[in-house]
């Protein structure tokens, strides 16, 4: 799909540019100048928008912060660690249970999907929080003896008041005899959650990777699943599929993740990365330091799954290649049945996407498998390499938007009239009020998994439910 230039009837470079210009008109000059490079018609081949810049103040961005990238995305999903939101109560409270990174284990015993916070008070700001941190690390170890490690995720004040969490972590790690990972992911750092991913990757590099080794002997089929956060169970679906083609998934990063397995990932033979944005850093590090190759793949929708399975197979011997073909042959008819059921109800429906990570490009194929057309896409916190990868997936001349403001999205929707908007919780009710069917595509709208062959039937069902719910037809009042 990423070769032939797809087009959408009625959308031309000019029409899209006109739409963008109209939206920009409303901005004050400075804001317009800043925003203009972030919005463009898709040229089909390159990164056509600017990205990873500071959010323009006052525009109602959907972005989060570095802490969100560290706590919510990278660290939070590691199930057997205690993750301390270090600072005032709010950050940890808002990110508590709101990302749907599902976890195995027993809550409070072997999994710690709770909210741990140092709950900074005025006095901690004035006198510093290092002592408190030291004490709470002891308390955590005492109350949760089976925790494999503790991460300390700094919130804004920590960096601003000059605390030295690194020193505390080092000392406590020694005293408590478990890894204590300091992560300087204060929310004011960088321009979005993206820096939080990077910082977290760096701390994994500095404190974790290479500190464990698997008991069992290495095998040529050892791989790690990187950049899958197990939203709604995605990891479980992806892992099952990779195992079905004969691979050993030694570690999952970081959905339903285990500290020890992550720490031993440097011995795998291949890193398979789904969310490139949040974890390419560590893949590169492992490549450089340990010579582990890595491969991007896409497990959304049967077309992309098939393509990805074959690409993965190429990295292995015939046994795996044969397995891949067997698996494809097994699931093809099942997926076709799903398509047969839903495609007639979704054919030609237009989708506008605005999410983060990998989905603005990775889900395009899944919609297309259902006969739908993606008419606009964008990322909250992407970089140029994300947009490079996006351009070929999208129909030519459709609008691409980076760090879009709610204002822009709303205007685009008015113009494009999508049949479905696929975005986040902050956008959901805006578009629903406009009468537009919507699915939350960060959280799978409390459904899932959407990854792999297990996921596609659920995805298809959900999209159909959203687009075709009869409730939409009631919006127009007879009065």
């Amino acid at each position, binding site marked *: 799909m990423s070769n032939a230039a797809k087009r959408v009837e009625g959308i031309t470079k000019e029409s899209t540019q006109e739409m963008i210009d109209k939206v920009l008109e409303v*901005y*004050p000059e*400075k*804001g317009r100048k800043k925003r203009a490079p972030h919005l463009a018609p898709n040229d089909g081949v390159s990164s056509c928008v600017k990205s990873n810049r500071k*959010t*323009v*103040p*006052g*525009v*109602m*961005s959907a*972005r989060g*912060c*570095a802490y*969100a990238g560290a706590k919510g995305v990278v660290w939070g999903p590691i199930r057997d660690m205690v993750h*301390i939101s270090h*600072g*005032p109560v*709010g*950050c940890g*409270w*808002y*990110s508590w249970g*709101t990302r749907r990174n599902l976890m195995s284990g*027993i809550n*409070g*015993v072997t999994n710690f999907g*709770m*909210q741990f*916070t140092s709950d*900074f*008070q*005025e006095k901690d*700001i004035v006198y510093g929080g290092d002592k408190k941190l030291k*004490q*709470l690390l002891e*308390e*955590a170890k*005492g109350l949760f003896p*089976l925790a494999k490690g503790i991460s300390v995720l700094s*919130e*804004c*004040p920590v960096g601003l008041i000059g605390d030295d969490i690194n020193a505390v972590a080092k000392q406590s790690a020694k005293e408590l005899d478990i890894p204590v990972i300091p992560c300087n992911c204060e*929310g*004011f*750092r*960088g321009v979005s959650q993206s820096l939080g991913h990077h910082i977290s990757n760096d701390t994994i590099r500095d*404190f974790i990777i*290479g*500190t*464990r080794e*698997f008991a069992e002997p290495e095998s040529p089929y050892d791989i790690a699943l990187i950049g899958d956060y197990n939203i709604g169970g995605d990891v479980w679906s992806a892992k099952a599929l990779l195992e079905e083609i004969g691979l050993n998934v030694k570690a999952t990063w970081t959905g339903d993740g285990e500290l020890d397995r992550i720490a*031993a990932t440097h011995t795998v033979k291949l890193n398979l990365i789904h969310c490139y944005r949040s974890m390419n850093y560590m893949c590169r590090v492992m490549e450089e330091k340990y010579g582990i190759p890595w491969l991007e793949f896409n497990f959304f929708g049967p077309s992309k799954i098939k393509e990805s399975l074959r690409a993965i197979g190429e990295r292995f011997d015939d046994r795996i290649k044969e397995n891949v073909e067997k698996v494809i042959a097994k699931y093809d008819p099942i997926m076709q049945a799903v398509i047969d059921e839903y495609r007639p109800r979704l054919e030609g429906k237009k989708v506008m996407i605005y999410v983060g990570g990998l989905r603005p490009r990775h889900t395009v194929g899944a919609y297309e498998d259902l006969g739908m057309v993606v008419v606009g896409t964008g990322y909250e916190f992407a970089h140029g390499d994300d947009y490079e990868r996006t351009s070929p997936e999208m129909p030519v001349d459709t609008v691409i938007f980076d760090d879009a403001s709610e204002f822009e999205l709303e205007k685009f929707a008015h113009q494009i009239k999508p049949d479905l908007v696929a975005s986040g*919780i*902050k956008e*959901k*009710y805006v578009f629903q*009020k*406009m009468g537009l069917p919507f699915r939350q595509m960060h959280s799978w709208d409390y459904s899932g998994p959407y990854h792999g062959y297990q996921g596609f039937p659920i995805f298809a069902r959900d999209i159909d439910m959203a687009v075709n719910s009869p409730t939409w037809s009631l919006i127009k*009042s007879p009065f």
Partner: protein
Amino acid sequence: MSNQLGLAVKPVTEYDDAEVKRVAEWINTEEYKEKNFARQALVINPAHACQPLGAELVAHAFEGTLPFVHGSQGCASYYRSTLNRHFREPAPAVSDAMTEDGAVFGGQNNLHEGLENAIALYKPKMVAVFTSCMPEIIGDDLTAFLKNARNKGIIPADMPTPYANTPSFNGSHIHGYDAMLLSILQTLTAGKQVEGRCTGKLNLIPGFDANTGNFREYKRILEAFGIPYTILGDISDVFDSPLDGTYRPYPGGTTLDDAADSINGKATLNLGPYSAAKTFSWVKDSYSGKHASLPMPMGVTKTDDFLKKLSELFGKPVPESLKEERGRAVDAMTDAHQYIHNKKFAVYGDPDQLLGYVSFLLEMGAKPYHILCSKGTKKLEKEIQALLDTSPYGAGCKIYINKDLWHMRSLLMTDPVDAMIGDTHGKFAARDAGIPLFRFGFPIFDRVNKHRYPIIGYQGVVNMLTEICNKFLDITDETCEDRFFEMMR
């Protein structure tokens, strides 16, 4: 052995089943409870958020008002998401997206640029500015920044821009609510007091309350009385707006004119003694007319007090329709008392609601057995204790101030109760204890429309007891042996 960074390399270990079982049992013990309650520094599963969340909520409660976070954009996203999830409604708010350089140069540029853009794009009538951590720590001078913005023409001359310092390392969401409300009222009423003028209206301060049904219920009650009113501020249409195909960023709220004229009110009644304390204290000194503060009208007695106060303030008798409603609520209570009598509850939440739960449960003959407020005061503890002391069903009930839901879990496992009342965050503890959680608090992320059913007033009594008793009956029907499965209950 060590890795490339010199860290020791150990084998990957799996959990030992026996050890897991031992710990899983241990965390339910009295011993663990004591260890847990000995915590000094670590907070686990607190039942409160930070100040700016409350500030945003009350900013939304005014006509055409854009909440504006001076701070990191991530903060704003967190507050908005929380409100979106609870109300299943939009929550338009902006931030000025401060980043590292703010730490060096301060946030004035961000604030100014942010105001310029926000006003152009979202065309508010008022911008309510409040802070997250960063500017609080670097010491941004909001007063000066906003004055400068006004002088530079960034803020239109007639646009009010109340602002509040809402540091997250102090108090909780209810204090941010209070601070922002105070500033909004101070800003809007400045210079509006007119000697001899009386609007004839009641100013009702609901306090931090994320139940839109409560607001509609207040209005219905006041309309039944025939008392003209201004609710300071009114989220009911803002967070429960019709779906008609048009998105409106400001679908309701207290009008700025009404808010401004509230200073000339006939009376001001505060129903959020804990969550609007500072505001009310200022109102008492500044507003014309009478002033009174009452607990949230939850349960029959507190509702009686509310109606008596209205009657007294406005010299109007309690309307027949409300007397009948009272009678119907009491009727529902007597009819259902046997399904809840002597049942033990664990309750947690914000102070104003917590007092309401306790009052309601005691009236039903139930025991508010574990009462927990993760951000409370000695005063609150005394007030709850005084309430407990009014009833034999308060005997043996204990109050836990500044404890969290991980403490609560220990209480539930060592001294079990029949049910829990609070917000969604208690669901893990409730599950471990095998008891139902009645979601009357804030936020509610996992059920629909709970915010549309009032829990104040007589109707609130009926709503609470209906949900509670019918759930207990569901449990009976679902868990009883076949031979005890019956037609009647």
